[in-house]
Structures are given as structure tokens and as C-alpha cells.
């Protein structure tokens, strides 16, 4: 594949990941509302019709794999293109973020794997699987399958308490890892969000400066949104509504 073809893949898969990350982040912020908000939201996502949840999961997985495999190919080719290094190499203007994309990317991959094991598969803390709570007949669950289900009380997975336990002081190192990873995501996006426009040929001198600012703002916005939860956990602001039962 041509060098530019690979750049298009990086940009398009990166765009999809950014879109996902923004939506995910806003969804997470419901943790700061009444527990029913996130629990109902999570219940609905889990019960999306037509297997939509798996469609989204497979699209995201494809994007992560495409992004990662292409990144590895690019990095190897770039490494081979300069077999002998300079002894004195000056840096003229390249930002720290732009020079460390491969490092921030690799740590993000480790983060993504851990994060999925932590809150999706829940095999880091298997007892998370047993957190349950009930929702009173709320929301539009009635309409999800285009039929009206009588819904007085539904037992749902208590996602609110799972996150609150996950980020509790007892597991402070997990929260710290999350915050550091989100800092790296912030750096990755500071370069990435502007860079993808260049890769796709949708940037000029004037817009480069504007997009650099948009990228910075978006990256910081994503960072604050994501990092606020583990931070709130460290500060003891969110408290679980269901206690953990140790599994044997």
C-alpha cells in the first residue's frame, strides 16, 4: 500500500476513535448525576436492538486494529528510511506531542486492553459482575423493541457502583493509571486531531493554525471529561450505592 494510503487509514480510523471517545466521555459524565442515569443508560446500551452493540464494538475493534497495524508499518518504514542517525539533531519546531505519537499510542493500547478487562469483561474484579440494583419503570425502554413491555421494576447491573468501587481509594493506583493514560490521550489528540485533516488534504496555512487550536481544545476537553471520574474517585466524591460482595 502507498505511503498516502496508510496515512488515510490512520486519519480515518483515528477520526472514528475520536468520535467514539467524545461520545463515551459525555456518556460517562452521567456518573455525576443520580445513579439511575448511568444505570439506565448502560442498561439501554446493553439492550440495543438488532445487535447494534456488537456492530459498534466490531467497528471500533476494526478501527483500533487498523490504526495500530498501520502505525506499526509506518514506524518500521520510517525507522528503515534513516538507518544512520545524526549525532547532533536539532528540533526546529515540532511539538512534543507530534514527536511522541508512537509512545503515547502504545501506552494507550495497554490502557484500552486494561480498561476493557476492568469494566467490560470485569475479570480484573470478578465481583463487579454481581453488583445489581433495581430501576423503577423509567425512560423509554418500553419502546426499544417497538413493543410495550410493562416495566415496573427491572433488575439491572449497577454500573454506577461498579465505577465507584473501581475508582475507590482502595484501588488508588487504578485511578492514577487512568488519569495518566488520559493525559497521554490528550497529547495523542493534540497532534492527531489536526494531523488527520492534513493527511486527508483538508487543511491550508490559515486552517492549520485554527485546527491546531481546535485540536488543543478538544484534547483538553476529552482529558478533563475522562479524568474527572478517577479523580472524583480519589477525592471520594462518588460513593457506591451497592456494597461489594467478595467472590470466592
Amino acid at each position: 500500500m502507498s505511503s498516502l494510503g496508510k496515512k488515510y487509514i490512520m486519519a480515518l480510523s483515528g477520526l472514528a476513535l475520536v468520535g467514539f471517545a467524545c461520545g463515551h466521555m459525555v456518556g460517562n459524565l452521567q456518573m455525576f448525576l443520580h445513579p439511575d442515569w448511568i444505570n439506565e443508560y448502560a442498561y439501554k446500551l446493553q439492550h440495543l436492538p438488532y445487535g447494534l452493540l456488537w456492530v459498534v464494538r466490531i467497528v471500533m475493534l476494526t478501527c483500533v486494529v487498523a490504526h495500530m497495524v498501520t502505525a506499526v508499518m509506518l514506524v518500521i518504514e520510517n525507522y528503515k528510511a534513516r538507518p544512520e542517525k545524526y549525532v547532533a539533531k536539532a528540533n526546529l519546531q515540532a511539538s512534543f506531542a507530534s514527536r511522541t505519537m508512537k509512545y503515547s499510542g502504545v501506552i494507550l493500547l495497554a490502557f484500552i486492553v486494561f480498561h476493557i478487562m476492568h469494566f467490560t469483561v470485569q475479570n480484573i474484579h470478578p465481583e463487579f459482575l454481581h453488583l445489581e440494583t433495581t430501576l423503577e419503570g423509567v425512560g423509554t425502554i418500553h419502546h426499544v423493541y417497538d413493543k410495550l413491555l410493562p416495566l415496573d421494576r427491572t433488575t439491572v447491573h449497577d454500573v454506577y457502583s461498579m465505577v465507584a468501587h473501581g475508582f475507590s481509594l482502595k484501588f488508588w493506583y487504578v485511578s492514577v493509571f487512568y488519569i495518566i493514560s488520559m493525559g497521554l490521550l490528550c497529547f495523542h489528540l493534540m497532534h492527531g486531531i489536526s494531523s488527520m485533516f492534513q493527511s486527508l488534504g483538508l487543511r491550508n496555512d490559515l486552517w492549520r493554525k485554527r485546527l491546531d487550536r481546535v485540536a488543543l481544545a478538544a484534547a483538553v476537553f476529552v482529558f478533563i471529561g475522562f479524568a474527572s471520574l478517577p479523580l472524583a474517585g480519589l477525592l471520594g466524591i462518588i460513593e457506591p450505592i451497592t456494597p461489594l460482595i467478595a467472590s470466592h
Partner: protein
Amino acid sequence: MSERNISVTLKVWRQKNASVPGAFEIYKVDSVSTSSSFLEMMDLLNEQLIEEDKDPIAFDHDCREGICGTCSMVIDGIPHGKKALQTTCQLHMRSFNDGDNITIEPYRSKPFPVMRDLIVDREPMDAIMQAGGFVDQRIGAAQDANALPISKEIADKSMDAASCIGCGACVAVCPNASAMLLTSAKVGQLNLLPQGKPEKDRRALNMVRAMDGAGFGNCTNIGECEAACPKGVSLDFIAKMNRDYAVASAKEFFGVVG
């Protein structure tokens, strides 16, 4: 600035030919006039070396006025030295201080192997040009100036791209040894003009393929090339080439390449 004489210590890459390893040598040059150019300082050093019965340092140069793109040293880690918008031959010793240590290396990239000392083989740039850096129609004698209207903006943009002197500093400075700035300038200067339009798609496709084939690295949109370019060629041309190539690839898929 008044003229002075300074001494500098140079750490220069010496290599007999492409097949033997090279190494740095240290040389001291005294009484260098601050009015002399960097290349004149190198001449002075070479005279000194010849006097001592040593091999003079081989380096590329031709016009010595910043238009041919032949001079090609990496001075303290920056191709053409620390001053923006100038070539090595335009760099003057007044930019240095008495007692400075200066490291001089050849361009480093796989497609540009070192031939001798500071001279690298830049032939892959010719391969890129031969793949599409031309207009394939008979143009005959020069036509009337207004026969083919071109807007001022387009003419200016094309001229900006055409100011690329093909020195290869962009490849040398790029952390990935990518030749995107050079290639995009050469694609852009013709793709912008009506004379270049009929072959716009195949030019983008063929020149990018020649660039890839030569083993250059991939652009990571970092912008070091633009900063080091002695002619200030803009990253905009890379964006334009990315756009032209995407459109051309789509047209190629449907068999309607222009």
C-alpha cells in the same frame, strides 16, 4: 556588523566512499572572517588540509548563491544551518561566535547514501521528477501572454511551489526521512496550472509511487521540513498532494484517470 576574525572547531564526517564506514574528524580553523560564507570557511579548511598533505573534505556546491540547491550539509543538526530561509552557501560566518564548535554531517537517509565525506547521492529525486514532473504536450513557441488566462492567486501558488530548488533539506531534517515536501512541491507546481491539468491524476499517482519506491519514510505532519526549507515551501502543498492523490486513486479505481 563589523567584520572580525574568529576561530571555530569543526567536527566533520569523513568517509572515503559508500562502501566503507566513516567517522568524525576534528579540525580547528583560525582567522575566519565573519564576512566569509560557510562554504568559504570550508574552502579555507581544505586549503589548510592540502597544505598538510591531507585529503580535502568533499562537499557539494555549485552556484553559491542559493539557487541551484547543490550545497547540502547538516550543520549542528540542521540542514543548511540554523538561519531560516537560506542555503548553506548563503549562511555566513557572522552567524557564529569565536570559539564555536560546529558539527557538520552529511544528509542522512537510506535513499541518499553517502558517496564521500559530505556528498550524498540525491539521484532518487531525479527518479521522482522523471515519474511526472513534466508536461507531456508539445507547447511550441512561447504563446501570447494572455492566451491562457491564469488567476493571480493560482499563478502565485504555483510559483511558490516552483521555488523548490530540489536540495533535499526536507528529507534530511524530517525525523522520518520523508520526501513529501519536495514531491508535493513538484506535483503542486504543475497540478495547479492549466498546462498541467490534463495529466493531474497520473502525475500525483506516479510521483508518489516513485517517492515510495525510493524508500523514503512517511510523513507524520510534524512540519520540520517547512521550517528547514531554504525556500519556505509550505506544508499546504503536502495537503494538496494528499488531496490530489486521494482523488486520483478514486478515479483510477473507476478507470478514469486524467
